[in-house]
């Protein structure tokens, strides 16, 4: 029996909370990982191993005054962080984290929404999210924010092209845009990380840029633009932007796991657990990069995007297509 609507609602509520919780603990993990790599301890005061730190941060952000500049354009200024957080959370809904279970006579599938064009939906939501960064920076009427917004727009637009092209190889091999189909095809054959290693590398580099993570964190380069587009945001509005960024990173890691590392599939352990383990490993790599690499310059960023990643991704897609058709 197919899922009735109320199961979808329950699943959506559960997943959205899990994602927000994982955002909170991604910040904790990042601080711990960075701390250890930098001869520090990271948070260790609030609760055992600093595990209550994200909650303390949340309370702090909520209680803080949400300052807004006098000349800010109110509607856009307030809407931007909400849109950013919404699109980031919505994109996770199509990522599958498990197969299909039988619960109480109902077939419950391991994803919030089973969309036949899952990849396109994620990219489309990501593209809407860019507006939030762009509009938020522009509406806050600050020079640093404006510069940050300009950088964000330029960076995200150029890297989105490479990101989309890099997954084309996977789509051609699987013959489907549905993420569930892609995972099932990998279960039948092998993880696409092996045949699509070039696609994976391009996807990862473009993904780091797409989520504004170091070494591509130019939009909010602290030592240049103070905090980029979010300079004039404080309190929970800033918190929503931060959440959007972390959730984007988690979604992108989830997408990487789904497209290249067989999604939820794996021996012995249940599917969702495998998914979480793989996801955590990818997220760890994001943090590792931050601890190691310096930041690129604006023109170098553009060069990497257009002159290196885009040709490589295109070539990869073409070669994959030829191999799939003739072999």
């Amino acid at each position, binding site marked *: 029996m197919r899922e009735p609507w109320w199961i979808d609602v329950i699943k959506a509520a559960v997943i959205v909370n899990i994602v927000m919780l994982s955002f909170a603990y991604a910040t904790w993990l990042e601080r711990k990982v960075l701390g250890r790599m930098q001869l520090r301890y990271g948070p260790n005061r609030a609760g055992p191993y600093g595990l209550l730190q994200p909650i303390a941060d949340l309370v702090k952000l909520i209680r803080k005054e949400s300052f807004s500049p006098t000349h800010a354009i109110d509607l856009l200024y307030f809407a931007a962080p909400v849109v950013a957080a919404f699109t980031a959370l919505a994109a996770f809904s199509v990522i599958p984290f498990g197969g299909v279970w039988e619960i109480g006579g109902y077939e419950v599938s391991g994803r919030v929404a089973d969309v036949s064009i899952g990849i396109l939906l994620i990219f489309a939501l990501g593209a809407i999210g860019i507006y939030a960064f762009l509009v938020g920076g522009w509406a806050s009427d600050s020079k640093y924010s404006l*510069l940050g917004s300009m950088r964000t727009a330029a960076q995200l637009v150029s890297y989105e092209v490479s990101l989309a092209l890099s997954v084309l190889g996977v789509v051609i091999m699987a013959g489907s845009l549905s993420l569930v189909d892609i995972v099932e095809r990998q279960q039948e054959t092998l993880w696409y990380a092996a045949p699509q290693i070039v696609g994976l590398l391009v996807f990862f580099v473009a993904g780091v840029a797409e989520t504004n993570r170091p070494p591509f964190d130019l939009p909010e380069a602290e030592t240049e633009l103070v905090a980029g587009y979010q300079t004039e945001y404080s309190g929970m509005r800033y918190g929503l932007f931060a959440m959007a960024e972390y959730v984007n990173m988690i979604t992108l890691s989830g997408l990487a796991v789904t497209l290249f590392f067989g999604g939820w599939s794996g021996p012995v352990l249940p599917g969702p657990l495998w998914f979480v383990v793989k996801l955590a490993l990818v997220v760890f790599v994001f943090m590792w990069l931050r601890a190691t690499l310096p930041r690129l*310059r604006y023109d170098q960023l553009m060069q990497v995007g257009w002159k290196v990643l885009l040709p490589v991704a295109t070539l990869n897609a073409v070669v994959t297509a030829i191999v799939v058709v003739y072999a």
Partner: protein
Amino acid sequence: MAVAETKRAIYEGTRIPSPIPSVLQVDPGLREEGDILEVNFGPNHPSTHGVLRLIVELNGEKVVGLQAVVGYLHTGFEKNMEAKTYWKAITYPERIDYVSFQNNELVFVLAIEKLLGIEPPPKAQWMRMLLCELNRIHSHLVWLGTAALELGAISMFWYCFRERDAILDLFELVGGVRMHTRYFQAGGLAEDIPQGFYDECRAFADTMEKRVDDYEALLSGQAIWLERTKGVGLLSAEDAIALGQSGPVLRASGVDWDLRKVQPYLVYDQVDFEVPVYPNGDVYDRYKVHMDEMRQSTRIVQQALHGMPEGPWIVDDRKIVLPPRHELHTSMESLIHHFKLVTEGYRVPEGEVYVTVESPRGELGCYLVSDGGPKPWRVKFRAPSFVALEATATCMSDALVADLIAIVGSLDTVMGEVDR
């Protein structure tokens, strides 16, 4: 990501933006188009060391105009020193450049000694040299950590501060204080070198050799770091000399000039070390000079530990140096000397001197005028940071915002010293 070697070539001749060399002026034609965005960096900005304020004019991401505003950390040290006796005034120079405190202390003490006409014993000379070189490593570590942090290599900061902490521990062992030790004084050192210092210092010097290699591997081995630093912030030898540069900035522009070699003070002529000189005048070469200087300083420290002579650590002149504590109970004369020194201080013969040393930032000068009394009549410091800051505008041609941060960082300015 091949580094654009053509862009890297250092230019010939001069590029000083005229008529004011420290200000980059916007091309009037560009200003009429109306696309110039004026942005204020600092005095509170995450990238400035301390309180430097830069008024930057941007055309898109490109820096087309630049003015530095200084004075936010002006403390009037030089004026204050006129109100203190010489031996109390020694505590002030350390706070002028709070990163290379031993060298600042040294230059003032050398100036007093020159006026007094006394020569400290060899042990004091060697120990001063050792501590100054440790201090140079300390200063370069702070520079490396913050400069890398500004370019986004955040972890370097903590690695550098690990070694910096080890050096501060050594200073604490010697003088009882981690920074601003006031260990040098006219005539020699404040106290004898404590037991156990040599072993600790030798252990540090051995690890430091390896650590510098580690840092260099972590940064020079990275394509992004090379891209960000090579060919950025060019300064030709001619311009560097015209702008009065010294220290690592000058040596990275291909000029072989180090006061420790060309005008040796202390016992620098008795140790073996090289002066690193690089020809390209960009941020990368300034970084290389700093790295090599840390290696050379480690060499000097090792030689100083090896060659440290025995003997007194301070001159035996009761008019200048406090008598040993135990004599106060038995000798009336010692008690009088002690009383006079503590209440009034020693008198320095009338005259004026200018003394220079090679501080981690370059030529550090102290101009001292005495009217024969126990307090300096006038003290003036030639601050290498202030001079280095003047080169910012010249380095800035064809720079982007991100380069601005790299360039200002590479000039290694300490705002306390700039404003004094």
